[in-house]
């Protein structure tokens, strides 16, 4: 069994940023485990320019941010970035098991950063298992990574940032987007993304839901319906749309299996997307060896994930090199950048969620914590 200072699970924006920051702060034995055969996580599908701070990555396309990270990583031989390495379990003696090239390995890290990302939510409606119904992530993977169009006429469900951005990418790929429908009364994503597809002639219908998908072998049409302000279907407003693809962009939920196995105290926090580990402001969980960063800590966006990765790395480094004031200063600076990012109205629900999960007040029931850690 190999020992190391830091293991990072997940090679997306949070994990990559964590690895580089940890190295910068003096850690020498760093393992980065990435399940896929490429690094970058969701960044490799994000063809749009990022918002955020000019001092970080604003104005740069996600696909290019992934390249910047990969280039930096190549200059750091102390970081062992394993692609195709799947974390299999976090054991009671703080051993991390992973499979790699057909073999099982064990790693005993002093500190572990979980940056495992999120998974997409599903929506219940009749025939939602017909071929032609995709999650937005799958559509992006097909289109932006492999150059395969998912269909020719699409209905997008969900007007959050992902729904709006993927609708725009579909238009860029020359695919017809019939409409973007949204069950709530307002467009959840950034208005500039909405305006961009709106001026391309794509209707965005708030208070609309999908009633059912129709088709024998595959999706042939979708029936959409208006909702009233209490989210009840309005009879007689059904409308059938001829489409061959339905794309679901109805939210994400943090991937926290390893945190649960690590005995981290969990809490259900709706604002953060579901069950998340309780953590302090330095992203340390109730298992002091384990830190959480990025979407697995709460659904946000990549700029925040990058900063959280850096913060988790600076926190872990601070405990490995206790009393190092430069590391403490680094932590303060990252926290200020995160606070700046979350200060505005769009960060309101994140601030509320974080306040709940940090104090663990009013947070939902912990359904998971096992007794062996307590």
């Amino acid at each position: 069994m190999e020992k190391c200072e830091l293991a990072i699970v997940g090679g997306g924006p949070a994990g990559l940023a964590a690895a580089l920051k940890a190295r910068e702060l003096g850690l020498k034995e760093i393992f980065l485990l990435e399940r896929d055969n490429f690094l970058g996580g969701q960044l490799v599908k994000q063809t749009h320019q990022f918002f955020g701070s000019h001092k970080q990555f604003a104005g740069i396309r996600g696909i290019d941010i992934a390249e910047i990270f990969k280039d930096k990583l190549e200059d750091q031989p102390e970081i062992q970035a394993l692609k195709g390495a799947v974390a299999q379990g976090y054991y009671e003696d703080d051993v991390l098991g992973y499979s790699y090239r057909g073999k099982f390995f064990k790693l005993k890290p002093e500190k572990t950063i979980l940056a495992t990302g999120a998974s997409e939510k599903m929506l219940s409606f009749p025939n939602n298992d017909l071929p032609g119904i995709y999650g937005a992530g799958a559509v992006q993977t097909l289109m932006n990574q492999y150059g395969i169009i998912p269909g020719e006429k699409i209905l997008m469900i969900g007007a959050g940032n992902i729904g709006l951005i993927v609708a725009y990418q579909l238009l860029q790929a020359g695919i017809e987007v019939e409409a973007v429908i949204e069950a709530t009364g307002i467009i959840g994503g950034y208005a500039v993304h909405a305006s961009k597809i709106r001026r391309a002639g794509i209707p965005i219908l708030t208070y609309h839901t999908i009633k059912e998908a129709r088709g024998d072998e595959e999706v042939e049409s979708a029936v959409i319906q208006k909702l009233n302000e209490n989210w009840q279907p309005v009879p007689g407003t059904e409308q059938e749309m001829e489409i061959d693809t339905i794309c679901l962009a109805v939210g994400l939920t943090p991937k926290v299996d390893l945190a649960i196995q690590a005995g981290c105290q969990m809490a259900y926090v709706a604002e953060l997307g579901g069950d998340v580990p309780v953590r302090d402001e330095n992203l340390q969980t109730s298992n002091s060896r384990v830190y959480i960063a990025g979407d697995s800590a709460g659904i946000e966006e990549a700029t925040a994930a990058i900063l959280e990765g850096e913060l988790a790395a600076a926190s872990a480094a601070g405990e490995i090199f206790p009393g190092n004031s430069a590391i403490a200063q680094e932590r303060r600076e990252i926290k200020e950048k995160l606070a700046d990012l979350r200060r505005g109205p769009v960060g309101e629900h994140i601030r509320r969620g974080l306040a709940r999960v940090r104090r663990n007040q009013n947070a939902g029931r912990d359904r998971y914590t096992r007794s062996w850690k307590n």
Partner: protein
Amino acid sequence: MLEETGIPEAGKIEENLPSRERLEQGPVAVFECFTEIPCDPCYYSCPLEAIAEFQDINDLPELDFEKCTGCGQCITNCPGLAIFVLDYNYSEEEGVVRIPYEYSPLPEEGEIVLALDRGGEVAGEARVERVQYAEKQDRTAVIWLAVPKEQVLIVRNFKRMED
């Protein structure tokens, strides 16, 4: 309502426009950025420092129309594609709207296209006057669209005829 349709309200658009006199003086940028999001690249893109420094990264950009020369550097630096440059007095009859554009293939200079408003409705025909696509624009083209003067405040997109 912008939050319900994606189309900004007339009042909001009006508030962010330069005066009539300034509009008639020559090219000027207009920012159709109406919700506070953490984003500041426009401030750093302006060579004339015509955009007020952000006190908070979530602030909306504030443009000094007197300092702005309509150079258009900000257009491709806006991740939201929310900046346009208007040249009301491009010629006797026509004005030009410079539009950020990320579809391919790019239109040809001289091509007649269908001008679209903020809701994607056809406002009339327009002529592609110029296509800017330099490397520093990072794959966002800027299309100069010549339109009748009265449509300078309306046209914000276009589609090609063969589409």
